[in-house]
């Protein structure tokens, strides 16, 4: 610890250290701690008319949480959101793993750059607009239906926006980068000779991936899955724009609570969602036997 301070002092100087401590401190306190604590405090208080706030009835209670656990519909939406977010995560993983491998170990030179740009360009456009684009593609008389009818594959337009399909599709598309980059990063550091060695020793491609590439890419896969899951579980735009009544997302329930001015209930629901995300992250760490430190690399 002492050595740490001494080297820090030598490298950064007193002003440098003070600058870092203050900026990081302000960030942690004002951007993370205080808002979360305010929300948590809200979630523990009952909704009261303005004049009663701070009065005798304004005490900490678990009533808001009880509301959630006793509301079967909201519970169902909550679990459906987890389930759908898991599907989004797995779909994104299935799509991104080959892309990341191709980028990191197969493609050379200009191809890498082109594919990278191809992946990044959609992110120059606002997320809402990207989702609108999907709305246009998937609409009853949208591009996809018209194409399928033109090709004679279908006669009547398909309602793509029934159920969860459209939301899952839109989200997978929206979060691909968050899955590709962490996996790409770890795969980059994999020595190509290891792949050749495994192949030379008789391994099939499937085996090479299962035995060599995947174990190596584990931290990246864990990060990608955690981020994608959190983004999927926490977004409100995609279900709002692409969803149908049957694809109601838990974030939409939270949103409704805030819109109905029941901030306390909304805060309780948001806390539950946050807890879910934290638990998911630890499950991923356990599952992939990755340490918190590796996760940040």
């Amino acid at each position, binding site marked *: 610890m002492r050595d740490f301070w001494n080297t820090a002092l030598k490298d950064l100087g007193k002003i440098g250290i003070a600058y870092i401590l203050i900026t990081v401190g302000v960030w942690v306190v004002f951007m993370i701690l205080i808002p979360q604590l305010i929300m948590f405090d809200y979630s523990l208080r009952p909704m009261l008319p303005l004049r009663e706030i701070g009065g005798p009835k304004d005490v900490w209670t678990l009533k808001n949480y009880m509301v959630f656990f006793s509301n079967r519909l909201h519970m169902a939406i909550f679990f459906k959101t987890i389930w759908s977010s898991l599907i989004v995560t797995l779909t994104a993983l299935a799509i991104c793993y080959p892309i990341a491998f191709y980028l990191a170990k197969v493609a050379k030179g200009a191809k890498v750059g082109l594919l990278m740009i191809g992946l990044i360009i959609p992110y120059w456009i606002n997320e809402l607009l990207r989702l609108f684009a999907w709305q246009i593609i998937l609409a009853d008389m949208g591009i996809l239906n018209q194409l399928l009818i033109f090709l004679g594959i279908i006669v009547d337009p398909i309602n793509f926006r029934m159920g969860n399909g459209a939301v899952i599709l839109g989200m997978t598309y929206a979060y691909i980068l968050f899955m590709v980059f962490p996996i790409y990063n770890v795969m980059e550091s994999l*020595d190509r*000779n*290891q792949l050749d*060695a*495994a*192949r*030379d*020793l*008789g*391994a099939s491609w499937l085996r090479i991936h299962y035995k060599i590439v995947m174990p190596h890419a584990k931290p990246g896969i864990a990060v990608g899955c955690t981020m994608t899951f959190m983004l999927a579980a926490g977004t409100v735009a995609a279900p709002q724009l692409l969803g149908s009544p049957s694809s109601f997302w838990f974030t939409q329930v939270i949103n409704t609570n805030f819109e109905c001015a029941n901030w306390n209930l909304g805060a309780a629901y948001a806390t539950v969602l946050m807890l879910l995300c934290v638990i998911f992250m630890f499950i991923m760490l356990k599952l992939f036997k990755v340490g918190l430190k590796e996760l940040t690399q």
Partner: protein
Amino acid sequence: MGQEVDLSGVNMRFGEVYAVRDINVHIQAGEFFSFLGPSGCGKTTLLRLISGFMDPSEGQIKIGGKDMRGIGPNHRPTAMIFQNLALFPLMTVEKNIGFGLEVRRVPNAKRKKKVEELIELVDLNGTGDRMVSELSGGQMQRVAIARALAVNPAVLLLDEPLSALDLRLRNHMRAELRKIQRRTNVTFIYITHDQTEALTMSDRVGVMSIGKLEQVAKPDIIYNTPKTSFVASFVGESNIIQGDIISIDGDYAVLKTATGSFVCKNPQHMETGETATVFIRPETVFLAKGPDAENLLTCRTKTISFEGAYAVVTLETEQRQIFTMRLNNDGSVPRIEEGEHIKVRFNRKNAFLLKNGGTAIA
């Protein structure tokens, strides 16, 4: 048991560039064969062609008499040891060695037994359950050898596996490799840019330069009777003087140079009037006793570097030609000081006249 490897007319082109050109060589079963050459001479490409990571643009590679075209590295009777070893860092020593058996679905008990045998063979007892990252450089080397031998290859391909080791360990591993090769009788194909490595370990050496095989022979023949200028200059040290042939005398020729005329061996049977280069090994140069012998040089000693068993003396002739001589420290040589004027000579049978061009920058 080893198998023979036969390369005939092998070419490898990348676009317009030939990485390997017209290679013809027959490597016998159980032979320790080295490809020796500077970096970029195409030896790694050659190894990748034999192992099956690439197929040659033209020509044929046969292993054990069977044409290998179209057969991938995972289906060839070869195993490769990579330059950086390419051990699997997330696996233990046992897992690394057993990898090839595991992917071949060798039953557990049989695999365990084989791995134990190999650990014994390469002297790694007691390290089986350690991670490879915990091992020393020499131990990692052994794991790589054991891992490659585990799949019972007929041909073991080694891509400069000793280059990362320090000198002492390298010398030790050389002897070790040779021992393992003798014991297993597997055909070893070794590539290296280190001539000592190639000369000490191999049954035969193939010297390569810019994609071509210059000479294939036993190590002593390569050293003593190089066939081309490249081989003469790349393998071992040589004094190199250029000149014109002024007369022929049987197997010998007289070369007229700026430093004087020398009688040299003429293995390429060059004709009078041709320009040629003569190569003279420093250890074949000695102090002249009489005044009227042939191949005599009058020089001044520039530097003397004493190496213990011998001393390397750098000489400069009156014509400013630099010449080196190696004197054995056997008590028969009088003491020489720097700056002294001395006469040295060499025997005609130790001087090789070769066609100009293609010399390696030593």
